[in-house]
């Protein structure tokens, strides 16, 4: 097992340096190291670096830190729950975001457990989500699907967007469920994600959305429908695409989508 450059831990510490030049330099050194650890021949080094970066990303605050639960919370279940769910980290949010980002550049599974854990970190979770999106492994997919149980419409929208670049039964199931979300932005993202998967059965979900919701939601559903048609056409399902395009022509879709349908059917 290769050992990590001893400077790495020093650079990680320096990411939070109040002198922005020092912090910048440290990040650039870590970035260069991460990128150059990427070749397939360096699998062991990738694991080693992922571990160092990941442990720093998820490292708890030292014992005497602010995260220690005050004794006064005893007897107050709500405040105790607040304290238990307020993780206190060793590194500042900006540093954790950078560490999460670096982990996304390593093409190995070893980064995933740390990124999955960081999905619980409210300040670093969107970058962790981005890095999981860059990781093609099954475990990254599972972590992203699991993140759909989180709260926050913007974050959930990001998770759905990340899933849009993948395929497989578990993805489809998760996206179909997300298409029923009460939060419209998540729902919209799910429709767009379903439109990127070549499966003509998604049309019924999208078509239904084109009849409900606000004018903006309906318009987006029509755009998603046209996207699905094109996804099908590109995958070789020309009949499926033509069926949707013909349906668009007779729907209340806007002119650009009807024009795309006419172009495709001509």
């Amino acid at each position, binding site marked *: 097992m290769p050992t990590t450059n001893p400077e790495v831990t020093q650079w990680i510490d320096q990411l939070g340096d109040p002198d*922005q*030049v020092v912090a*910048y*330099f440290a990040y*650039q*050194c870590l970035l*260069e190291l991460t*990128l*150059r*650890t*990427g*070749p*397939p021949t360096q699998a062991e080094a990738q694991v080693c670096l992922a571990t160092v970066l990941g442990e720093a990303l998820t490292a708890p605050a030292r014992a005497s830190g602010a995260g220690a639960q005050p004794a006064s919370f005893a007897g107050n279940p709500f405040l105790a729950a607040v304290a238990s769910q307020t993780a206190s980290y060793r590194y500042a949010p900006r540093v954790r*975001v950078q560490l999460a*980002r670096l982990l*996304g*550049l*390593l*093409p190995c599974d070893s980064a995933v457990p740390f990124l999955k854990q960081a999905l619980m970190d409210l300040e670093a979770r*969107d*970058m962790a*989500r*981005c*890095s999981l*999106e*860059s990781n*093609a492994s099954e475990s990254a997919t599972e972590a992203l699907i699991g993140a759909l149980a989180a709260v926050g*419409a*913007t*974050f959930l*929208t*990001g*998770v759905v*967007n*990340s899933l*849009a*670049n993948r395929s497989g039964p578990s993805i489809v199931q998760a996206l179909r469920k997300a298409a029923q979300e009460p939060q419209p*932005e998540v729902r919209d*993202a799910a429709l*767009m994600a379903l439109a990127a998967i070549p499966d003509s059965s998604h049309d019924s979900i999208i078509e239904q959305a084109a009849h409900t919701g606000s004018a903006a939601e309906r318009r987006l559903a029509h*755009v998603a429908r*046209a996207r699905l048609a*094109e996804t099908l056409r*590109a995958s070789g399902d020309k009949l499926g695409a033509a069926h949707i395009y013909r349906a668009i022509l007779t729907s209340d879709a*806007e*002119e*650009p*989508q*009807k*024009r*795309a349908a*006419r*172009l*495709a059917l*001509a």
Partner: protein
Amino acid sequence: MRDAVGRRTFLKRSAMGSAASLTPTGLLAVGAGQAQKPAAPSERVRVGLIGVGVRGRDHHLRFLGANPRVEIAAICDVDRSRADFAGQLALRGSKRRPLIFGDFRSLLDRKDIDAVVIATPDHWHSIIAIQAMEAGKDVYCEKPLTLFIAEGRRMVNVARQYGTVIQVGSQQRSDWHFRRAVALVRRQRIGRLKRIVTHLGNPGTTSGAFINPGVWEPVQTPPEGLDFNMWLGPAPYHEYSPNRCHFEFRYNLDHSGGRITDWGAHHNDIAQWALDMDASGPVRIEGKGGFNKAGPYDYANYLEVHYTYGNGIELVCENEHGNGVRFEGSDGWINVTRLRLDASSPEILTEPVSGQDIRAYDEKNKSEEIPGTDEHHNNWLDCIKSRQRCAADIETGHRSATVCHLGNIAMRLGRKLEWDPDKEQFVGDAGANILKDKPFRAPWRL
């Protein structure tokens, strides 16, 4: 009215017709003299400008605002002071007051806008362009078309699906010097082409690098009127600092590709054209880049990238020896900049070149073409009317930007890379393939 069939009538008819009308055009249609007749208001293209910083204002508003075929109908910028200032400028010589927006989506919702010009930082191009195309607008998108490789293919696909006329702002495709140079090379006036060198250094020189490491500035509150979160959009979050925002975006790799995309989108685009690789690209890349670890700008200050194409021809891209493109053949060389066209022998340049068999150049248009004039916009407007593809169509813009991104990736990784231009992916290098794509900050998506 210029023609019996007006633009809107034509659009309506073409919408009833087929995609076949959107076919590649040669550059023969780039007629500089075509724009001088005033068009009737109903025939004018109603344009929305999205992003009115230096480029959007001093180039697009300047030229399109004076173009009788155009009405500047709307202006959008996340910096209110810039939007208002551009709006005031647009009022000069116009009877109509342009609408002002801070969010491009509101502009795209307007049914009375025909086309948009996107002159935002690079990290916004793909999202805005795709939404514009899906809203039925024709598009002029500044170069480089993309910030990363994967988004370009998606943009091309949407453009084809919607029959969008899209011009990429690599305006050297409409510039007399470059068009003639490409025509001469493709007609083998320098013999068999062996090597192309693109110089991305200081413009107007034949020597000298372009180096700008930047100056550190403290993080601060964004100025009033600037919606900095919207400025960042899909890019990773950063606290505001003036050296990241507005014109300075081009030196920060979260918002741009740096020098190799800023100028490479011009000169590497010309190389791709001369190589007849508008729908393809190199197969091997190796690069050295001088990334400034002292900051604040993180782009490659020094760069030297060697590309090899499938036909064995080499493209070298560097930034230490002036600005322009040099073509080296078995029988001579041609050097072209925005100001000059030189060759190893005067005879190479004196022989007339007909535009009939090489789409790069039409001798008849020569006298009209003066650097800094409006051929590229006029080509776009011509194509909006004819529904033909533009001189710098989106596929060429995507491929040229890809060449630049490949160089950046090779420099950052510091290893030789193999690229499959058909599948648009690296061969046997998962680490490199990660860099083809960049996840967007929530909630943004393509």
